């Protein structure tokens, strides 16, 4: 740390040490959107530098400019003190910048080795390049202990390991500066910790790491310096040791934010949802939910935690009537509503089940539609929306304006295309559509994914208000913070099974993390006890 500070002071005109990256006055517009406004940034060599900001703050744009995906309208990029003209990712790689994308760019059917040499095969005949690559990989492996078998097929690797393959790819190309874009979104807390240990090793070897994230916890845990972006501007640079999550979140949003949700005790009443031995298969016939049994009572929020892809999505979709049950049964207030046999999403809606799906763009709305068209999705046959044989667009418009006012959707314009709202406002519109129907059961998946902090606060309050109004809420989220602050009881899913239940009071990140990785709850608590 003191090293870093020394470097920070030592940079500049006297020229002792140049920063690894220096951006001066980077400016970028997309049409009318000013994504980056005169951004200045210095990243010191051999440090881990965090960049935080809400969605749409311009972090990804800035990094895409640095990596050559976009050209800046103005400003300069300096790497190691040298002015660089980065026109494409080739240029970025040649000056030693490597990037690990949020969505991996891997060929799943290829082996690790084949993926790593993709694009740098070194000649038309593979054999020479491959054997050289193998040596090089072994060296990198020794140096950074990444624990990857070069001959494993990438598709068979876990998400955490796939991410390491991406890191390996960058290192193989001689990256001295590694940019990671939201790297922990798909990882368990333990996998994330492992990633941070790898980054630490990289730093010790003199590499520079730029970490883009919206999770303040990770910034605090892993970085040396942090820069905060808001609405296209760089608003602050801090040393991590000298700042706090509260200060950072305030800088990100531009006002004070409540990080902890205040809510009263739950008063659970009658059982609303009773899931018994439910099994769900995906389209390929693979069993994704295995013998799930649980209940949700009126007046409580039950959270489902788990690493993304462990069956939560399929569970939620089955309960919402989108997927059929392969086995088992579902009861709603004592009546059988097992999905599949004549019970589809429309039928469940009629019976008072509201569903805010995990994937807003793919499922919750048609982004090409106007807000008012989006606001009746699933409820288009409602009587108040009809005028004879036709839809009553005036009434729908009014109802939409009402939803938008109630849930603070901005701009309050029912005729605007859904795609033109920000993520947070889209999500608020979906929540308004589902919650304002006054359902008995609210199914909600990833309610705050891609939503800015200000809106998160609002959405959380609304979900708790549903609970306090005596409704049953089932919450699926991969954000442990969200589950822990909202849920009264927490179910943990791993590989399709619910491996245990933890009350909110006794939940903590380590226990949940171990359970998410498939460790038996009793064992997890024992491990926790030792630690």
């Amino acid at each position, binding site marked *: 740390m003191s090293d870093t500070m020394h470097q920070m002071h030592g940079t500049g005109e006297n020229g002792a040490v140049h920063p690894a990256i220096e951006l001066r006055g980077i400016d970028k*517009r*997309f*049409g*009318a*959107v000013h*994504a980056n406004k005169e951004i200045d940034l210095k990243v010191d060599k051999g440090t881990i530098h965090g960049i935080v900001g809400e969605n*749409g703050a311009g972090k*990804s*744009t800035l990094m*895409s400019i640095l990596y050559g995906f*976009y050209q800046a309208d103005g400003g300069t990029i300096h790497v190691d003190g040298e002015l660089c003209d980065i026109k494409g990712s080739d240029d970025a790689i040649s000056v030693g910048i490597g990037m690990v994308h949020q969505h991996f760019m891997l060929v799943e059917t290829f082996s690790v080795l084949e993926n790593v040499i993709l694009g740098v095969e070194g000649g038309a005949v593979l054999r020479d390049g491959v054997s050289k690559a193998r040596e090089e990989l072994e060296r990198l492996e020794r140096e950074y202990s990444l624990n990857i078998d070069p001959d494993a097929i990438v598709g068979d690797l876990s998400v955490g390991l796939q991410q390491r393959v991406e890191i390996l790819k960058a290192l193989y190309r001689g990256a001295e500066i590694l940019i990671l874009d939201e790297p922990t979104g798909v990882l368990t807390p333990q996998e994330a910790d492992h990633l941070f240990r790898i980054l630490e090793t990289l730093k010790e070897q003199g590499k520079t790491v730029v970490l883009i994230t919206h999770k303040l916890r990770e910034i605090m845990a892993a970085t040396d310096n942090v820069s905060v972006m808001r609405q296209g501007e760089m608003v602050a640079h801090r040393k991590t040791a000298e700042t706090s999550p509260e200060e950072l979140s305030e800088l990100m949003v531009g006002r004070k934010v409540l990080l902890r949700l205040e809510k009263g005790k739950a008063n659970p009443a009658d059982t609303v949802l009773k899931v018994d031995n439910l099994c769900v298969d995906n389209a390929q016939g693979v069993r994704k939910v295995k013998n799930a049994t649980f209940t949700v009572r009126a007046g409580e929020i039950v959270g489902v935690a788990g690493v993304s892809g462990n069956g939560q999505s399929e569970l939620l979709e089955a309960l*919402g*009537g*989108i997927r059929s049950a392969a086995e088992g049964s579902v009861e709603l207030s004592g009546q059988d509503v097992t999905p599949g046999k004549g019970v*589809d*999403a*429309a*039928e*469940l*809606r009629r019976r008072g089940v509201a*569903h805010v*799906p995990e994937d807003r763009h*793919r*499922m*919750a*709305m*048609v*982004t*090409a*539609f106007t807000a008012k*068209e989006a606001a*009746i*999705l*699933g409820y*288009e*046959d409602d009587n108040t929306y*009809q005028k004879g*044989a*036709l*839809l009553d*667009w005036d009434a729908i418009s009014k109802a939409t304006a009402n939803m938008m006012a109630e849930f603070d959707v901005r701009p309050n314009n029912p005729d605007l*295309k859904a795609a*033109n709202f920000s993520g947070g406002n889209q999500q608020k519109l979906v929540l308004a559509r589902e919650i304002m129907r006054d359902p008995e059961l609210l199914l909600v998946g990833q309610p705050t994914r891609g939503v800015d902090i200000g809106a998160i606060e609002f959405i959380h309050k609304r979900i708790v208000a549903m609970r306090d109004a005596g409704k049953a809420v089932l919450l699926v989220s991969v954000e442990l913070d969200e589950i822990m602050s909202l849920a009264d009881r927490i179910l943990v899913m791993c590989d399709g099974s619910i491996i245990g239940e933890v009350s909110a009071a006794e939940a903590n990140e380590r226990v949940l993390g171990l359970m998410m990785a498939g460790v038996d709850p009793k064992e997890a608590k024992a491990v926790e006890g030792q630690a």
Partner: protein
Amino acid sequence: MSKAVELPRWIDVGVLPLLNLLLALVVSALLVLAIGENPVEVVEILLFGAFGYEEAWGYTLYYTTNFIFTGLAFAVAFHCGLFNIGAEGQAYVGGLGVTLAALYLDFLPFPIMLVVSMLAAMIFGAAWAYIPAYLQARRGSHVVITTIMFNFIASSLMVYLLVNVLRPQGSMTPESEQIAEHLRLPFIHDIAGALGIEMASSPLNLSFVYAIVISVMIWLFIWHTRWGYAIRTVGANAVAATYAGLEPGRFIIIAMMISGALSSFMALNEVMGVQHRLLIDFTAGYGFVGIAVALMGRNHPFGIFLAALLFGMLYQGGAELSFEIPTISNDMVVVIQGLVILFTGAMEHMFRPRATKIYTAWRLRRDAQEAV
């Protein structure tokens, strides 16, 4: 991040198609020059042939009628995310329905026959579209593949029926018997004549009025009914439709059957209105041109009407052209029509990126000026 600026409607549905059309005409002009004729003269003859005199108008609108029906047919399926290129076959089989109704129910009075023939066309056309629709919805067979195959099947089937079943005894030509005079759709010039207005005779008949009425109904259907909403939802995002409880397969079948029914209305114009009997290949490619009409008209009934008018003009004016200038053969006219289809249909997005760029720059400058 890189959110594209949306073009205002007047550019999207006005300027861009006009630019495409202009480009098509420029390339056509070069071709005309290449064979040693004067492009200006050609355009003059084309326009005069299409609109220059009363009779020409009648012919132009008669072609337009066909294009409205096939254009609407394509558009309805397109709103459901389906590329129905089977209008040709669906119209052909629809024609069979019309003919059978007219030949075997000829005892019915005209007003009832109006409805019955329409229903017969709808049922036959929709039924022909149902099979590919079912295969798409329930078996995942791509509708582009199946509909084009069904065009061939329809063609063979109709040849068989016309040669072996419908051909009157003793006739050497593969076509059905004439339908009874009192069942034919009245020509517009006859209607006008009855009202005391003198009009030049042309094949334009009552089905043109049908086409206008149906256009309005389709507009209402797509944007103002629950089914229309459901069809658009399935077309834009089938996953969201499932989430909403709108089973995509069901609406795929509904949209395709409506599409088939619309195609078959073309047979009303041709069989009931003009030919008064079922002819081999009476569909003559109108089904395929309907695709270009719908794409150029942005799948909106009003746009389709304008695009259909354009193609009606090209057909009628083109016929006049090959008559007036012998060096411009009929094939040459087809080439010009093909160029228009190419530039307005297949390459409709060619100018879009550039137009977006120019428009964005213009707006930025305007915003900047307003800010000052």
